[in-house]
C-alpha cells in the first residue's frame, strides 16, 4: 500500500527532473552553465497558465491527442515496477498491455499531428510511425528473453528476477539486452541519434515537429507526457541494466532515483557526443537493435 503511494508520487513529480538533468549534462559538455535543474517544472506550470490558440483546420481530435497520450502513458506507468517494489497493477501478460499503451499514445499523437493539415506535422508523423513500427519487435524480443529466464509473464516478476547473481550467470545475454533496451529508450523518447529534441529546423524534427501547433495547457500536457514516458522507459531500462539493491525496501527508493539520474546522465552524454543519424540510417540502427535482442534470446535458449 505504501509502495503504491510512493510509486504514484514519484511518477507524478520526478519525470521533469530527468529532463532537467539531461539538459544540464548537455550544457556542461557545451561549456555553459545551462538552465536550472527544475526548469521543466517551471515550463510546464507556466504553460498551464497560458491561453491556447487553435488552428481553424483542427477538430476535437487535435485536443484529444495530447490528453489520450498522457492518460495512456500514465496508465502504463502504473504497471512498471520501480526498483524491486511491486507496482500498483500487476497481472500475467501486463507487458503486452504496457507495450500497446505506448502504441495507443503514438496513434493519437500522430493523428492529432495530421489534424493540423500542415506538411511539417505530416512529415513528423510519417517518420514517427515508421520508426516505432521497427522499434516494437526489439522490445518484444527483450521481453521474451526476460520472460524465459524468469519463467513469468508479469513485468514485476520479470524485473524482480534480475539480481546481480543472475545477471552474472547470464551475463552476455544481459549485456546485449542492455544495449538493445538503451537503443529502444533513445528511439521511443526521440533522443539523439534518432531525433534531436533541440533542433528548430522542421525538416530534421520528428517529435518536435508533430507538436508544433499545440499551445498552452495542451502543450504542457505533451511536455509532461514526454517526461513521464522517459521516466517509465528508464525504469524498465534500470530494472535490467542496474540490478543492485540494498537490503532494505526503504533505502531502495533513493537508490532507484539515483539509478534514474544516472540513466538521464548517460542519455545526456550520448546526446552530447553523437550527432543525429541520417534518416536512412535510422531504420538500419533499429533493425540492428532487433537483431541484438534476438541474439540475446538465442544465447539463453540452451
Amino acid at each position, binding site marked *: 500500500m505504501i509502495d503504491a503511494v510512493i510509486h504514484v508520487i514519484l511518477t507524478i513529480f520526478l519525470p521533469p527532473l530527468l529532463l532537467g538533468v539531461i539538459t544540464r549534462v548537455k550544457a556542461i559538455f557545451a561549456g555553459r552553465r545551462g538552465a536550472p535543474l527544475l526548469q521543466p517544472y517551471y515550463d510546464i506550470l507556466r504553460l498551464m497558465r497560458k*491561453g*491556447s*490558440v*487553435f*488552428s*481553424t*483546420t*483542427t*477538430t476535437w*481530435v487535435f*485536443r*484529444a491527442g495530447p*490528453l*489520450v497520450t*498522457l*492518460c*495512456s502513458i500514465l496508465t502504463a506507468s502504473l504497471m512498471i515496477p520501480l526498483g524491486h517494489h511491486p507496482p500498483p497493477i500487476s*497481472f*500475467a*501478460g501486463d507487458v*503486452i*498491455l504496457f*507495450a*500497446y*499503451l505506448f*502504441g*495507443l499514445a*503514438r*496513434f493519437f499523437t*500522430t*493523428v492529432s499531428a*495530421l489534424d493540423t*493539415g*500542415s*506538411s511539417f*506535422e*505530416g512529415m513528423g*508523423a*510519417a517518420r514517427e*510511425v*515508421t520508426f*516505432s*513500427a*521497427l522499434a*516494437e*519487435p526489439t*522490445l*518484444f524480443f527483450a521481453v*521474451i528473453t526476460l*520472460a524465459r529466464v524468469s*519463467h*513469468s*509473464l508479469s513485468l514485476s516478476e520479470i524485473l524482480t528476477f534480475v539480481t546481480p547473481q543472475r545477471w552474472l550467470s547470464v551475463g552476455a545475454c544481459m549485456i546485449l539486452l542492455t544495449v538493445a533496451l538503451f537503443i529502444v529508450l533513445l528511439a521511443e523518447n526521440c533522443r539523439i541519434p534518432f531525433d534531436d529534441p533541440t533542433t528548430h529546423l522542421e525538416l530534421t524534427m520528428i517529435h518536435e515537429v508533430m507538436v*508544433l501547433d499545440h499551445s*498552452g*495547457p*495542451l502543450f504542457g500536457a505533451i511536455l509532461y507526457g514526454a517526461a513521464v514516458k522517459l521516466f517509465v522507459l528508464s525504469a524498465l531500462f534500470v530494472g535490467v541494466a542496474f540490478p543492485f539493491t540494498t537490503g532494505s525496501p526503504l533505502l531502495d527508493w533513493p537508490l532507484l532515483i539515483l539509478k534514474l539520474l544516472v540513466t538521464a546522465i548517460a542519455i545526456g552524454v550520448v546526446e552530447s557526443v553523437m550527432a543525429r543519424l541520417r534518416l536512412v540510417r535510422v531504420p538500419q540502427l533499429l533493425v540492428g537493435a*532487433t537483431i541484438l535482442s*534476438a541474439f540475446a*534470446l538465442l544465447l539463453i535458449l540452451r
Partner: protein
Amino acid sequence: MELPTTADPTHLVILAGLIIACGGGAGILFPSRSGQWLSILLTAAGSLLGMTGGVMRLAGVEGTVREFAWSFPMESPLVRIDPLSAFFLIPLFIVAPVAGLFGRGYRPLETDSRRGTLTLFLSLFTGSMVFLLISAHAILFLMMWEIMAISAWFLLTIDSQDPQVRRAGTIYLFATHGGTMALFVMFSLMRGATGTFRFPLPGEMGAEGGGATAILILALVGFGGKAGVMPLHFWLPGAHANAPSHVSAMMSGVMLKMGIYGILRVSGMFSTLPPWFGWLILILGGWSAVSGIALAASQSDLKRLFACSSIENVGIILTGIGIGFIGMSQGDQTLMALGFTGGFIHLLNHALFKPLLFLGSGVIIHGTHTRRIDRLGGLMKSIPWTGGAMLLGSVAISGLPPLNGFIGEFFLYLASFRHAMTSSLPFLLLVAPMLALVGGTAVIAFVKFFGIVFLGSPRRGYDHPHDGGVTMTGPMVILSILMLLVALYPLLVIRGAMPVVAQVGHLSLTGVSSLLSFVPAPLLGWMNLALILVVAGAFFLFRRFIPAGSPRSTTWGCGYLAPSPRMQYTGTSFSQMAVDLFGIVATISRRSPRISLIFPTLEKFGVRTREMVIDSLLVPLFQIAGSGFSWLRRLQHGKLHIYMLYIFVTLFIMMLAWHP
C-alpha cells in the same frame, strides 16, 4: 437465466435461414421503399431468431439433427448444428441486418437502376451462408457454397458499367471457381475414405497418410482461397474495393470467415492431424499477416486498404488456429487453448470492426464520389458521426487498448510467451515480434487512412458529404457499441469461444475453462474501462483550463503567406518510407518524369502498387495458355454440320466404350 429449452437450436436456425432468404423476394415483388424495409425487417427477424439458436447451442442446448427427405443421388442431406457452426453463425447474424439497414440509406430501392437485384442477392447470400454453416452433407454444402459465391459475384458486379468492377468480378469468379474445383475433388476423396457424402462426426475419420494429406491440402487451397490467405489472396483487394460498401462489409466480415470455417470443419473430422498441418497454417497465417498489412499501407484507394487489412486479419486468425493445432500435436493443452481462443476471438472482433470501417467508407463514397485517399481530407467537420465511428474502428483494428482488437492479440501473445517459457525449441516465440511488427504497420496504415481522409483540409473540392441519417449512422453505432461491449467485458466472447475450443481441441468444457483460468480477462476489461474513464476525466479537467472561446488562427506554416491544402502530406507520402522498407512484399512501380528537352514540358508522375500474384504470375500464365491452345480455335469454325459431326463421333465412341 432460464433459457427456453423446448425450442431447438437447429429448428431456429433453419427457420432463420428461410426467413432471411425469403426477404430477398420482397425486394423483387415490391420494388419500392416498403419492399426494402420489408426485406430488412425479415432479415432482422431472421437474424434475431438465428442468434437465439446460436447462443442456445453455445450455452449447451443440444440441437436435433434434421434430415431433409430430398431425393439426392446419394443419401438425403443432414443439417446439424454444433458449437463450431454456432460460433460462426454469430457474426453472420450480427452483420447481416446491420448491412441491410445500411443498404436502405446507401442504395434506396426506389432510385436503384437495378430494381431489387441487390436486395434479392443480399438475402440469398446471407441465407446460403446460414445453411452452409449447418449443413452436414457434402452435396448440400457445395450447393450452398456455390449459391454464396455466385450471389457474391452478382452483388459485386452490380455496377457493371464500370470496367474496373467487371475486371474485379472476373478475377473473383475465377478465384472462387478454382477453389470450388478443389473442394469438389476434396469431397470426392472424403467420400472415398468414409463411403458416404454425409460429414463424419468430429474426430471420426482416421488419418490415412497420403489420402489425409491430399484432403487437407485441398481444403487449404479451396477454403483458404475463399478466406483470402496468401498466395490465393489476389481476388480480395479488387473484389472488396469495387463492391457496394455494405456488400464489402458482408464479404469481408462474414464470407472470409466461411473459408476459415471450412478449414476447421474438415480438419475437425480427422481423429488425429499430421504435425505439419499446424505449422503450415501458422506459416501461411504469418505470411498473410505481414504481407497483407504491408500491402494495406501502400494502397491509395481506401477500400483496397481495408481489403488488404482483411488479408492481414485473416492471417492473424490463422496464426492463432495454427498455434492451436501445434499445441494439439505437441500435447501442450494450454498452448492449444490459448491459440484457438485467440484465433476465435479475433475472428469475432474482425467481424465487428471491419464492417464498421466498410460502412463508414460507404458514407464517404456516397458524399464525395471518390475512393482515392489522396483526394479527400477534412471530412471530420462534414461527417462527424462517421468520423467518430471510423476513429473507433481504426483504433480497434490496430489492436490498441481500450478496444476489442487488443483482446484477441493478447491471447496470441500469451501463447507465444508461454511456448518461449516452457519449450526447449520455442519456434513460436517468433510469433510475438511478428505480431508487434504487424501491429506497428497497422498503425501506419490506419493513421494514414484516418488522418488523411478525415483530418486536415480537403485536398480537392467535393460536393456536400453528410452524415447519412439513422439508416446509415445507426448500423455504425450498433457495431461500435458491440465493440465496446467486447472490450469492456471480454469474458463474454471468451465464454462464447470456449465450447468451440473444446470441440476443436477434443477437450471438455471444464477442461478448457481451467486451462484458461490463468488469463486475467476480467482485469483486462477493467483496465480498458479505467483507461476510458481516465481519458474522460482528463477531457473534463482540461475543459476547465481551456476556455471555450480560445482564439483561432491558421496553422503555422513557417510564415508562408499563401498556404494551400495541396501542401499537406498525402497518403502516399505518409506511407512512402514504410513502403520502401517493405519493398520485397509490396512492390511499388513509380513512373518518374523524364527530362529530355531543355525547356520543361508536361510530364506525369505516378505511383502504383503492383499486385504481384496477378501481374507476375496469373496474367502471363493465362497469356501463355491462350497462345498455347490457340490451335484449338481451328475447331471453332462456325460450320453447324461439322459441329453435329463432332457430337455424333463423341456419342459413337462413348457407346462403344460403354458396351464392350
